[in-house]
């Protein structure tokens, strides 16, 4: 049992995966929320309706979402070099992970904002709230459960992407699974990494669900 498993390697790979996840999720949320808000606000009949802005944003988001992640990884190489100086390791993986996930997350945020009853926006307007206040004080708090649920979905997608990023030299559990488990037929390594990824996904889902339940008052 587990003869081929170098637990130190596994531990390092696990930490790399967590670092990639933490870094890319933070940036995904930091970019995805404003982007989702812009998508929402510029939409037809919305607070800052602007067909041109909406069409451009929507187009960019759709293009990035339609690219298979493995292609994005390769296409992004020069940009990644430019941004972080390397295309390898945890650092090199973060730009493609963020570019691959933030547009997806932005759509989820947009949807969460659409779910908010328009009456709430109207009431805030009637109280003399500015557009900025409506977004910050009414829309985002009301949409928070959806925004967190979307972040959970994105985090889980990111776990899958980190495994793919592993193939092009990012390290992490996915890299371990491919290099040892697949290429060297070390089934035990494969098994351990898969179980760890599974556990990670479970924990993320449970954490996400717990947070959503905490902030839901509907």
């Amino acid at each position, binding site marked *: 049992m587990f003869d081929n498993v170098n637990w130190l390697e596994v531990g390092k790979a696990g930490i790399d995966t967590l670092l990639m996840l933490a870094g890319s999720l933070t940036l995904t949320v930091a970019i995805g929320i404003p982007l989702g808000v812009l998508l929402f606000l510029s939409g037809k009949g919305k607070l800052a309706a602007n067909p041109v802005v909406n069409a451009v944003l929507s187009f960019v988001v759709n293009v990035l979402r339609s690219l298979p992640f493995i292609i994005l990884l390769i296409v992004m190489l020069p940009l990644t070099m430019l941004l972080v100086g390397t295309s390898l390791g945890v650092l090199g993986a973060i730009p493609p992970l963020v570019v691959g996930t933030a547009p997806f997350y932005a759509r989820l945020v947009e949807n969460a904002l659409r779910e908010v*009853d328009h009456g709430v926006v109207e009431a805030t307007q009637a*109280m003399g709230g500015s557009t900025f206040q409506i977004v910050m004080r009414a829309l985002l708090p009301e949409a928070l459960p959806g925004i967190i649920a979307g972040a959970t979905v994105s985090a889980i997608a990111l776990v899958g992407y980190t495994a793919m990023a592993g193939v092009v030299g990012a390290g992490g559990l996915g890299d371990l699974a491919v290099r040892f488990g697949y290429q060297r037929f070390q089934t035990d390594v494969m098994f351990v990494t898969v179980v760890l990824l599974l556990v990670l996904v479970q924990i993320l889902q449970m954490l996400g669900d717990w947070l959503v339940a905490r902030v839901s008052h509907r």
Partner: protein
Amino acid sequence: MIRLEGVTRRYSSRAGDRVALDNVDLEIGRGEIFGVVGRSGAGKSTLIRTINRLETPDGGRVIVDGEDITALDAKGLLKARRRIGMIFQHFNLLNSKTIEANVAFPLMLEGRPKAEITARVAELLAQLGLAEHAKKYPRQLSGGQKQRVGIARALACGPQVLLCDEATSALDPETTEDILNLLDQLNRELGLTIVMITHQMEVVRRVCDRVAVLKDGKVVETGRTADVFLNPAHPVTQAMLAEDDDGFDAAMAPVGGQMARLTFRGASTYEPELSRIARETGVDYSILSGRISRIRGEPCGQLLVVFTGGDATVAMARLTENGVAVEAIQKEAR
């Protein structure tokens, strides 16, 4: 207090243009409870929403407390809106915030100091009987309680005007009564000017000093509630009142004789005029339909009667002398 001058609002869609408000003139006095009724799609919501410019008119002016709302810039509009409270059919509370946070919300938007907000919220919650619900969330409250929170929130910044868009339409009759009493009380105690949009004639009858009837974006009738309700001039008003009154059709009455509509107003409503005059003039009468009630506190009644035997003309003249409005109705041959 509120004046609408030639207010027009059009919507254009692929299906063509639609005039939601057609050159509406309206004057609402300070401290008045003013009702606006009309059928679905008449433009009621559009009308009330022009008062705080949630809806910007295409033409005309809206003046609230001497200030031309239609001419304000973005910043001025936000300030003006704080002096105009609004409540909604579906309450529109923030589900993510507690009751006290909901009531504090407009004060927070205005950037008032924290201590002041806390004090004002406590005062409002106590005033509206919501103190025990302060820490709850909207979903834990009944419809009537939610509307009370809506009212507390609308009053937070001390407005002079309260706009109510179908504020009681989602409530059961008992809760409606409760909310109407509350609005009536706020009107009396704070001198609050209230504009009520509703399709419930009963609501108007109960609390509105004056009423305007809207049809296809036009004001077709306006006046004191008792005047309009007892003598509706426009067919839409008549139809809406008839529906409210389960619509007695005089032409269906299976009796001969002189039919008449008698309208009593004020204290005399409770006097036995009809039976006294009938006795004196020797006519008999049967009551076909009728209603004795109060309109905005004023006792009034309207009876549809048919006189048989004796001299109906004399009886009707005597009734008129005694302050009863008499309208003889010719039964149409069918």
